[in-house]
């Protein structure tokens, strides 16, 4: 459920202006409404071929939103929100099958960005984005907990492989290894498994005490400002540690 917030037509209009780029305008105008995208969409196929589920309908709704600007109303926004979050996973399959190559995923992302301007973001996603701002990761893990986890995993690893380490903030290492915040939270063993591989391969690597979460869930909210902030955290860590490469968990 999204939080109920007051409508802000002015902000919506600004978001429309900000998000209207050349590709979006072109795509929404040239769509020939041919319907060839229909059976490329899993929402359409999984809902007994409900025509309202085809990708082109989602594109049309974004076009309507762009045209409404500050004439936006609650009812439209509510329906728009459910379509844009509930009926598209931004998988881009329809893009591959569209004769014009119209990228509905990007269009959906724009639609979500418009919802962001109204604070209309699924509550869990909102919390997650707040966590990135507060803790630098999506799972509300404090820096202390993070370092503790790494040290604990290092101890476990050393019982098996004496001499193996999980280096933290090693300046000038070749590789900075980043993880999904779910790993320290729920599957810390994953980190020691990777450390084992790095150790046995003789790799010069390090982990960072900050900017270590490589997920970017703000991207799924079309919140590009937050998404850029999150990416920047990892980039900053890489530059500070003067590593040559950033490796990302699978």
């Amino acid at each position, binding site marked *: 459920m999204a939080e109920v917030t007051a409508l802000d037509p002015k902000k919506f209009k600004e978001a429309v202006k900000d998000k*209207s*780029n*050349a*590709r979006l*305008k*072109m*795509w929404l*105008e*040239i*769509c*020939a*409404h*041919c*319907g*060839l995208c*229909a*059976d490329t969409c899993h929402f*359409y196929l999984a809902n007994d*071929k409900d*025509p*309202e589920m*085809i990708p*082109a*309908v989602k594109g*049309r709704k974004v076009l309507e939103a762009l045209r409404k600007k500050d004439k936006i109303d609650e009812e439209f926004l509510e329906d728009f929100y459910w379509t844009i979050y509930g009926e598209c996973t931004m998988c881009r399959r329809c*893009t*591959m*099958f*569209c*004769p*014009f*190559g*119209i*990228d509905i995923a990007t269009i959906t992302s724009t639609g979500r960005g418009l919802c962001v301007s109204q604070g209309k973001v699924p509550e869990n996603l909102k919390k997650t984005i707040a966590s990135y701002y507060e803790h630098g990761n999506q799972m509300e893990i404090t820096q202390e907990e993070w370092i503790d986890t790494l040290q604990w995993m290092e101890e476990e690893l050393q019982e098996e492989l004496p001499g193996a380490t999980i280096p933290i903030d090693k300046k000038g290492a070749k590789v900075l290894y980043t993880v999904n915040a779910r790993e320290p939270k729920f599957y810390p063993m994953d980190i020691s498994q990777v450390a084992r591989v790095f150790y046995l391969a003789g790799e010069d690597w390090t982990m960072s005490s900050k900017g270590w979460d490589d997920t970017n869930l703000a991207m799924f909210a079309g919140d590009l400002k937050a998404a850029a902030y999150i990416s920047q955290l990892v980039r900053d860590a890489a530059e500070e540690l003067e590593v040559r490469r950033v490796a990302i968990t699978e």
Partner: protein
Amino acid sequence: MSLYELLRGPLLWLAFGVFIGGMVVRIILFFTLSTKKDKPIYRFFSWKWLWLSIFHWIVPLNQTAKKNPITTTVGFLFHICLLVTPLFLLAHGVLWYESWDISWWSLPESTADYMTLIIIGCGIFLALRRIFLPYVRVVTTAADYLLLGVTLAPFVTGYLAYHQYFDYNTVLLLHMFFGELMLVVIPFTKLSHFLMFFFSRAVTGMEFGRRRAPSW
């Protein structure tokens, strides 16, 4: 000035002016806006993926064509005849020769006649698709029928004029009017895809190409 002279002269100039000028403006707007707001296009620009993307869709070398053989066949026939017939029609060639003293190869008259019928037949198929397929009907607006009508009108009237059905002079004037109307609406409607197709295919081809995932 008679209605014929008006349609043959100033209005034709106007139609070509709006058509060409409109498309030039569309392209300028695309470049001015995209250089500011669509940076990924230029950052990951690739001639290779641009041409591969256009090539696989300008000929039916893609999954969509394989999955929809009938619609693909109709679509290609429609577009080929639509472009070739007016450009290589003998009667049009004569007009160009009279006005500008230039001439080029033209189609045998009977071939052009059949091609016109193919366009009309394909147009009817596309309209029926819109009416009977729920997933096409759902995205169909009045504009889609109108534009299909505007596209077919010059061919229907051209066919009637060639065979001199009904009153020849009236049909001819209508033919000229609809032809000019079609040119005029192109830059402002989805018909602009005749050119924007290449831009759209290019940006998506490059976007998928940089991930080594061909978009066809």
